[in-house]
């Protein structure tokens, strides 16, 4: 296992080393400063503003900012729905794919708009190349950018120094700058690196081959590398192929696996540094990073050890799951040889603490305790790094909550970076914190408590409950990973004739994703709008500090407390039961 731990340590080290670089760069981008890329991208940026016919010097208050965000999301929703329902008319459709039915399309569109990338469809059997690149991949960029601009607006609300300020910045400027200066350049670099290692980028039709011993098959192709890079960087997670990053054409060796995990965590971690820089105290950023990282490290360790142990079904069948000479051992069900246990375990933690949801191994085949890790990560509601932007704004809501609780404990008016936290902010914060768990639990309750959820369930016993619970937990957290037995579509015979939806699962899931995405965004922007106007009080002796270890412990405590109180009963019925028993069902 030493080799595995070394890989994990190396990964974390590289990531932390890159944080100041990327985080500092993003801080300059969002402060509107000139960066080295301005010379190349400046003309493009201003061209976009001219085409959009917006005056980006005009700031927007929180309502204006929210209005632009919601309007553009709505139009992108309609555009994507239109694209996915007209597949027979597409260029770049060498396989003559047909469109899916309205219900599964509703789910997919809501899924990509909300940065979830929950997939009730198999990419290579239902999507045209055009849908993948001009439909889904575009949303990978836009939904990521939307997440980031919201946290930037919140940070501006926190740091505004002039009492009575209203403006949070200009939505169109933030969206354009995030896309052009942050997401696109890193994606281009990532895509080229991935391609050099074997990730494909092709517009060819699928290629038939005849194997050495007479078997024949078909290689599915497509513009994968360009989509793969932004899928990870934007913590989207929607695979080009049905088996996502387990597919060698998406993730071909140890290096691509490393790059993809790195891209997933790059922005969520770096944003804590950006935050520290923008609020004028890097310690503030590192404090939040420390709280997130401590929970992440625990998640990685638990899943790695649990998976290395092997699964009860394997032990009962007499399979040797110990490491042998030339084999790493462990629970290799649903895992790829080139990743083994360590890189599959690390990926599982990486993709569920963030809201990415891309997988390089099958979650449904994780051991009970290994499978508990994705559950626990999602129960933290995107506060452990989380999605790009969403993670930090979710965590900042918890910071406000922790400041409030801390304030109550010492009997002082809670203050956060010089701004008084009062009734209005706390109400909005609590609402923002509660939406996601509530959406998850209501969805899961409806799916398991009524007969309509049953057709989607694959496995017997507690595993079946885990599938359903995880499905709504994942969609509410805008994660998109799945215990993939849970299904929302039926693929008729003949692979390209379009998927048929399971209406109940598609609609409930789609609603869950939209509610759990846009309501918190509105609450966060409202909090930003409330904070931006406030007078700044100089820190005194009685001010609770938010950049020391005590506060980090308090913050972690609040996150665990809220997550555990909300989800513990549900978790007992699924993964905990499975982890505690060697019985089979």
């Amino acid at each position: 296992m030493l080799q595995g731990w070394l890989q994990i340590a190396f990964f974390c080290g590289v990531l932390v080393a890159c944080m100041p670089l990327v985080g500092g760069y993003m801080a300059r981008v969002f402060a509107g400063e000139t960066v080295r890329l301005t010379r190349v991208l400046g003309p493009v940026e201003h061209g976009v503003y001219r085409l959009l016919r917006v005056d980006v010097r005009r700031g927007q208050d929180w309502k204006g900012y929210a209005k632009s965000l919601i309007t553009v999301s709505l139009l992108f929703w309609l555009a994507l729905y239109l694209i996915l329902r007209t597949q027979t008319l597409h260029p770049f459709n060498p396989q003559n794919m047909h469109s899916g039915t309205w219900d599964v399309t509703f789910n997919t569109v809501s899924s990509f708009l909300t940065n979830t990338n929950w997939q009730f469809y198999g990419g290579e059997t239902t999507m045209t190349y055009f849908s993948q690149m001009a439909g889904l991949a575009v949303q990978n960029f836009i939904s990521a950018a939307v997440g980031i601009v919201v946290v930037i607006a919140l940070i501006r609300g926190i740091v505004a120094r002039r009492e009575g300020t209203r403006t949070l910045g200009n939505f169109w400027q933030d969206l354009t700058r995030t896309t052009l200066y942050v997401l696109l350049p890193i994606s281009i670099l990532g895509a080229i690196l991935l391609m050099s290692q074997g990730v494909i980028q092709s517009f060819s039709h699928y290629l038939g081959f005849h194997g050495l011993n007479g078997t024949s098959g078909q290689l599915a192709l497509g513009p994968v590398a360009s989509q793969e890079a932004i899928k990870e960087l934007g913590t989207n997670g929607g695979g080009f192929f049905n088996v996502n990053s387990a597919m060698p054409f998406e993730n071909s060796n140890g290096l691509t696996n490393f790059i993809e995990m790195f891209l997933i965590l790059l922005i969520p971690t770096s944003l804590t540094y950006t935050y520290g820089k923008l609020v004028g105290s890097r310690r503030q950023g590192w404090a939040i990073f420390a709280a997130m990282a401590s929970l992440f490290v625990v998640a990685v360790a638990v899943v790695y050890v649990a998976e290395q142990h092997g699964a009860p079904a394997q032990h009962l069948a007499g399979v040797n799951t110990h490491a042998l000479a030339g084999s790493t051992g462990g629970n290799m069900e649903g895992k790829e040889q080139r990743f083994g246990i360590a890189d599959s375990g690390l990926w599982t933690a990486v993709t569920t603490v963030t809201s990415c949801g891309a997988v390089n191994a099958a979650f449904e085949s994780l051991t009970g305790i290994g499978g508990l890790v994705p559950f626990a990560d999602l129960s933290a509601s995107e506060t452990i790094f989380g999605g790009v932007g969403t993670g930090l704004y979710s965590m900042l809501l918890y910071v406000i909550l922790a400041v409030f609780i801390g304030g109550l404990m010492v009997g002082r008016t809670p203050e956060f970076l010089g701004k008084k936290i009062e009734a209005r902010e706390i109400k909005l914060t609590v609402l923002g914190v509660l939406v996601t768990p509530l959406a998850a639990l209501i969805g899961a309750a409806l799916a398991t408590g009524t007969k309509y959820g049953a057709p989607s369930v694959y496995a017997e016993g507690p595993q079946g409950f885990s599938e359903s619970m995880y499905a709504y937990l994942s969609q509410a957290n805008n994660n998109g990973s799945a215990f993939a037995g849970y299904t929302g579509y039926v693929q008729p015979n003949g692979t390209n004739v379009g998927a048929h939806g399971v209406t109940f699962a598609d609609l409930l899931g789609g609603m869950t994703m939209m509610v759990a995405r846009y309501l918190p965004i509105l609450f966060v922007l409202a909090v930003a709008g409330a904070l931006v106007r406030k007078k700044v009080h100089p820190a005194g002796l009685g001010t609770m500090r938010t950049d020391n270890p005590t506060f980090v412990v308090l913050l972690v405590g609040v996150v665990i407390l809220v997550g555990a109180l909300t989800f513990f009963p549900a978790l007992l019925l699924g993964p905990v039961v499975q982890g505690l028993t060697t019985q089979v069902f």
Partner: protein
Amino acid sequence: MRRELTTSLLAVVIFTILLGLIYPVGIWAVGQVAFPGQADGSLTHVNGRLVGSSLIGQDFSGGARAAAYFQSRPSADRYNPAGTFFSNRGPNQASAVAFYKQQLAAYVRREGRYDSGLTAAQVPVDAVTTSGSGVDPHISQANALIQAHRIAAVRRLPLARVEKLIAQHTDGRFAGFLGEPGVNVLGLNVALDKEAPLT
């Protein structure tokens, strides 16, 4: 509101063209110039015939000559790279126990004929579990070394020669430490056909 709608509509069009067409086509162009082999799917040809991709595992268990080839890991989707899915076999499923028992027995039966003394406890776990993608191109080194006995016997090659071929077709960890080593089954089988052609 109307202004907002116009701006949004323009944004949809502009960003779709930039991110949905220019970006992927640009990456494609870079791939065609810099890494055409990889970008097109790392295709493997034998005598001008496409026999697969070195990145995509395939089924060698069919046909009369199956015994002469290294076998891939079990697959849930019949090794179909154009319609992949996970096995979704849970950790505590009764059906999973039955599946592993059957896989283990079949493996020991197949290889035990050539490797007397092979016990179930020596079978590495990757040989009896389904891979994630269903088209895992690799098997573990332990798995390959067991199968080497069969290959050597059927192909009438010295065992040492087969073991050397295995070593040549082992993809190590990247830069010596990222990922896990694995033996590329297609590459190895192509090499075997060259080394000891079947008549």
